[in-house]
C-alpha cells in the first residue's frame, strides 16, 4: 500500500502544547514540510521569538537560538551574515513582530536580508492572556480593550504584509490563511516561495499567516476558524503583495 501522508521528518514526534483549534500547529507543520521539501534540516538555523511560538525548538528538529521579544530579525541577521550557506528563518507572532519588533522587521526587510520570516497573526497577545495587539480588529474585545478596540484612541489594526511590501529591499511578501483546505493549499505554495527566495539567494521572504486563537477569542475552535474567514480575511486580504509565484 502506498503511503500518502506522514509526519514531516523535521517535525518532532511530540504533542503540541498549543490550545485546541490554534493554527500554530498547522503552520509549524507547513514549516517542517518546507524544510523537508528543500532538504534543509541539516543546514537550518531557526530563530525563536517570544510568545506562544517560543517553544518552536520543541517541535522543529533543527538548531535554534531564542531571541528577545521582537528582536528575531536582528538575531537572524547576525546568524545569516555569519553563516550565509545556512538556511535561516524566524517564526514570530503579531505581538512580537508588529508591536515591539517593528523596527527590527522593517530594517531587516529593508536591508534585503536573506531570511525567511514566518509571521503568525492571531490579533491578540496570546501567551500573556489575550491583550490587544497592533493587529487587533476594530471593536474587538480583548483583556486590555474590554469595551472593544477604539480606533480613535487605540489606532487601527496594522497590515504588516502590505507595509513591508513597500520596501524596495524585499523580494517576496504574502498573506495566507489555513482556515480552509483551499486556503491551506495556497498557503503551502506561498511558504515554499518564501523558502525559495532564500535558497536561491534572491532576498527577503515573508509570509503572514492569519491564525485562530480560540482561547483568547473566547470561542470554540469551530467559531474561531469561522471568524478567520468572516472577519479577518475581509480586512487582511490574502494574496501576494510583492513578487510572484513562478
Amino acid at each position, binding site marked *: 500500500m502506498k503511503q500518502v501522508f506522514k509526519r514531516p521528518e523535521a517535525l518532532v514526534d511530540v504533542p503540541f502544547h498549543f490550545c485546541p483549534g490554534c493554527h500554530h500547529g498547522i503552520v509549524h507543520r507547513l514549516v517542517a514540510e518546507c524544510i523537508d521539501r528543500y532538504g534543509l534540516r541539516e543546514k537550518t538555523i531557526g530563530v525563536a521569538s517570544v510568545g506562544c511560538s517560543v517553544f518552536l525548538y520543541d517541535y522543529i528538529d533543527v538548531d*535554534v*537560538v531564542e531571541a*528577545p521579544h521582537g528582536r528575531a530579525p536582528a538575531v537572524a541577521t547576525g*546568524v545569516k*551574515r*555569519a*553563516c550565509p550557506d*545556512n538556511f535561516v528563518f524566524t517564526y514570530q507572532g503579531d505581538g512580537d513582530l508588529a508591536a515591539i519588533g517593528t*523596527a527590527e522587521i522593517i530594517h531587516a526587510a529593508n536591508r534585503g536580508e536573506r531570511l525567511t520570516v514566518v509571521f503568525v497573526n492571531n490579533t491578540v497577545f496570546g501567551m500573556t492572556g489575550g491583550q490587544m495587539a497592533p493587529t487587533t480588529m476594530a471593536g474587538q474585545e480583548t483583556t486590555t480593550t474590554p469595551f472593544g478596540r477604539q480606533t480613535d484612541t487605540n489606532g487601527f489594526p496594522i497590515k504588516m504584509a502590505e507595509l513591508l511590501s513597500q520596501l524596495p529591499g524585499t523580494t517576496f511578501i504574502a498573506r495566507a490563511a489555513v482556515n480552509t483546505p483551499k486556503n491551506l493549499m495556497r498557503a503551502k505554495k506561498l511558504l515554499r516561495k518564501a523558502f525559495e527566495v532564500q535558497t536561491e539567494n534572491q532576498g527577503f521572504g515573508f509570509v503572514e499567516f492569519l491564525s485562530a486563537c480560540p482561547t483568547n477569542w473566547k470561542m470554540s475552535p469551530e467559531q474561531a476558524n469561522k471568524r478567520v474567514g468572516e472577519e479577518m480575511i475581509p480586512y487582511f486580504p490574502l494574496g501576494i503583495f510583492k513578487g510572484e509565484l513562478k
Partner: protein
Amino acid sequence: MAETVLVKGNEAIAMGAIEAGCRFYFGYPITPQNDIPEYMSKHLPGTGGTFIQAESEIASINMLLGAGATGARAMTSSSSPGISLKQEGISYLCGSQIPGVIVNMSRSGPGLGGISPSQGDYFQATRGGGHGDYRTIVLAPHSVQENYDLTMKAFDLSDKYRNPVLILGDALLGQMKEPLKKHSYRKKEYSKDWILTGTKGRRPRLLKSLYLSEGELTDHNWLLYKKYKRMKCEIMFETQFLEGAKLIVVAFGSVARIIKTSIQMVRDRGMKVGLFRPITLFPFPYDALEKISLSIKNFMAVELNTGQMVEDLKLAVGHKKNQVDFYGRPPGSIPSPDELYNEVKKVYKKRIG
C-alpha cells in the same frame, strides 16, 4: 609586526578587535565612540568580515547575539545611553551563554548628559546592568596601548567563558592619541561544541535563556554563578609604590592615568602614597586589596563620579579600622594632575600628618 603607530584610543580598540579575529561588527552612531564603527566599516570588508550599521543599539546587540551563536567573533560598541539600550541583549547573551565583546566608551549622564569623560557607568557595568542575576567580565584600560591589548584579551575571555565581556572606557581613552605598538596575536581555541551550524551529523542544538520547568532555572542560575566564581582567576590590577606606603590611592581607567602624575608629585614631596589600579572591574580584586589592607590602613578612592567603585573598595578593605576616603568628580570637567595632587595631599595630611 612590532610596528609603532600614532592612533586614537577608539581606533586602537578596532585594530585590536580585527587582529583578534573579530569579523563581525554591529553598531550605531553615538559620540564619543564613532571612530570604532568608522574604522570597522573601512577595514572589516578587506578581511572578509561584515560591518552593519544597525537601525538601533538594540538591533546591533541582537545581531551580535546571532553571530555569536554561530561561534563567530563579534563586537559592538556604543556609549552610555546606547549601552543602556543594549542591556536587554546583554542579559540574553549571559542567560544563553553566548560570547561577544561590548565596548562602552562612556559619556556622562544621567539622561542625555554630555559627552565628557565619566565613570558614571561603573555600577551598570559591574552589576550586570540589565535584568536578572548575571555578570559580565569588565576590562578597564587606561591607555591607548591597553585599549588594543585588552580588546584582544576580551575576545579570548569571552570565548573561554561563553560570556559577554565589556570594555569600559570614556571619551578621554577613546579620543586621545598615543603611540601604539602593534603586535601579532595567537588566537586561543576553545570548545565550540555548542555553536549553531545546522544539525548535520548530530542532534539539534539550542541556545536559550527560558527555563520554565520546576527547578530548571534555579540550576541554571547556580551554573552561571559558579562560572562567575571561576572568573576570579582572570583578575588583573596594577600597583605602584606599595612598599612602605601609608596611603593607597585606588583608581581605574582615565582617572587612574591622570592620578599617576599626581602620585609622583606627592611622592616627590616625601609623602608615602601608593597606587592600586583595578584592570578587571568584574571580577574586582577584593582579595588583593584585602591583603594589602592587613599592613596598610589608609585608602582613597578617586573616581569620575560621585562614588561607585568606592563601595567595592570598602567591601574589600572595610574590615578592622581601615580608613577609606573618597574624592569624586561628577562629569563636566576633568580634574588636572595638580587638582588631584591637592586632594591626595589633603587626605594624606588628615590621616597620616
